[in-house]
């Protein structure tokens, strides 16, 4: 579903964000991308929805060579790749319904489809009853769920999340992670960049660790910190684990 071969990214100021990345992510998988701030997690995600072009190497998403994609074809790619951010990026003057519908309307969707899809995803994220509320009237978790609904409304095959729980308290974090898990169970490939150790260790899924733009570890059922025995969560008191 996602493949990177020899991908390097050097920003114009000389910063090397990614260095010879080789990576494959299978369809329907649930993958964590971990590492400290500035290790290249967000840069890697940006390559996948072509917000950024690699300096070198090949980026393939759903069979499309993203690094060679013509500008005019980018919208088509993005309808297949949902993106969720730490700061939600909701439009404050639109309701939950309007924020989600917006993503369909601006792609020229028919009203019939808007009326069908929006309730479906609002139902999925559990916000059907709050569809007339504005973002300012929602909790952080609800705002993030609205953002997820917006990312999903076009039925993308891939969902990219850049620190989706970065602004959330533990209860809201769990809520959002459960939702992402459910979305993944429906067949959507989910890739989450995070430095929330608790989340990673609780889920025990594939973990790709970046350091200075390089992949230093790639483990199935991995932990936030390298190697066994146990991850951060297992070294914390049990009360923290259940949070």
């Amino acid at each position, binding site marked *: 579903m996602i493949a990177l071969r020899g991908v390097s990214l050097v920003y114009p100021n000389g910063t090397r964000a990614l260095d010879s990345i080789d990576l494959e992510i299978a369809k329907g998988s649930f993958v964590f991308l971990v590492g400290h701030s500035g290790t290249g997690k967000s840069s890697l995600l940006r390559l996948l929805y072509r917000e950024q072009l690699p300096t070198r190497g090949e980026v393939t998403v759903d069979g499309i060579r993203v690094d060679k994609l013509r500008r*005019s074809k*980018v*919208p*088509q790619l993005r*309808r297949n790749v949902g993106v969720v951010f730490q700061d939600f*990026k909701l439009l404050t003057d639109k309701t939950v319904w309007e924020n989600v519908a917006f993503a369909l309307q*601006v*792609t*020229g969707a028919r*009203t019939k489809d808007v009326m069908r899809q929006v309730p479906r995803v609002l139902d999925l994220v559990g916000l059907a009853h709050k569809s007339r509320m504005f973002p300012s009237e929602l909790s952080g978790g609800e705002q993030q769920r609205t953002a997820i609904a917006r990312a999903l409304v076009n039925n993308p095959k891939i969902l990219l999340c850049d620190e989706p729980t970065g602004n959330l308290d533990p209860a809201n974090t769990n809520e959002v992670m459960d939702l992402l898990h459910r979305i993944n169970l429906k067949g959507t490939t989910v890739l989450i960049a995070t430095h929330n150790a608790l989340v990673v260790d609780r889920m025990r899924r594939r973990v790709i660790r970046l350091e200075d733009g390089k992949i230093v570890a790639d483990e199935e059922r991995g932990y936030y910190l390298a190697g066994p025995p146990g991850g951060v969560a297992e070294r914390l008191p049990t009360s923290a684990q259940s949070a």
Partner: protein
Amino acid sequence: MDWGRVQFFFGEVWRNFTRNLIMQFTAIGTVTVTIVLLGSFVFTRDTLGAIGDDVLKKIEISVFLKDNSTTADAKNLAAKLSADRRVRSVAYIPKAQGLAQMRDRLRGQIDTSLLTSNPLPDVLRVRVADPEDVRAVAATIRKLPGVANVEYAEDAVQKLLRISDVLGRIGLAVVALLIFTAAIIISNTIRLTVFARRREIAIMQLVGASGTYIRWPFICEGFLDGVLGSALALGLLEVARLELLPKLAAALPFLPMHAANINQLVFAGELLTIGAAVGIIASWVSVGRYLRT
């Protein structure tokens, strides 16, 4: 027709348009001023041009014969001139007829009965086929025997044409400058809207809206600025035509104000098109510049 889509689209346009009303009014006002000036300029140029053409066509060479010349001399000369291929017509006006014509012309203004003798010479009035030949024909006639003097209005006509030409160039430069200014102001207005909506545009791009789709509401906004501005200008021009022109015509009776053959409907259409085009191009450029970055 999917009315939901239409409604959403025009909702976006309306939200853009009303977000920066003061800037919007500035843009519309600039277009109005530009189009009013453009319209007045074209009207003035066409009127002056028509007057010039008219005068050129009527240009006449007055050949004043020497006092001692006889009617036979005059008729000989007239026949000779008529033979010239460049000459269209020659009219012989004996001094007596000339006086009678003058009396008619000045009736009620000067008491011509005070004239005790006829001060006028015999005159030949010569018209040429092509105004370009006036100078050459006049020079030929001047050298002929029996001719006292030759007069024609060529200098005045040439001056008139030169003035209208210079005025036309200045006017064109001013209008070009104004159109440019209007384009810059519309472009800045659109840029402000684009800036105010940068979050929405970023989200549109993120969820896969096409560049064209993002661009259209802004193009419509520029189009609205241009069309509303020129419509307002057309209103002002129409008021000027109905109210100002008759007064001007009364004050300057020697200028034929309706000399220019302007089709008002076509002219209005042209001005409206120019306004709309300025709006569309200006917004296209400024959105394009934003979307590229």
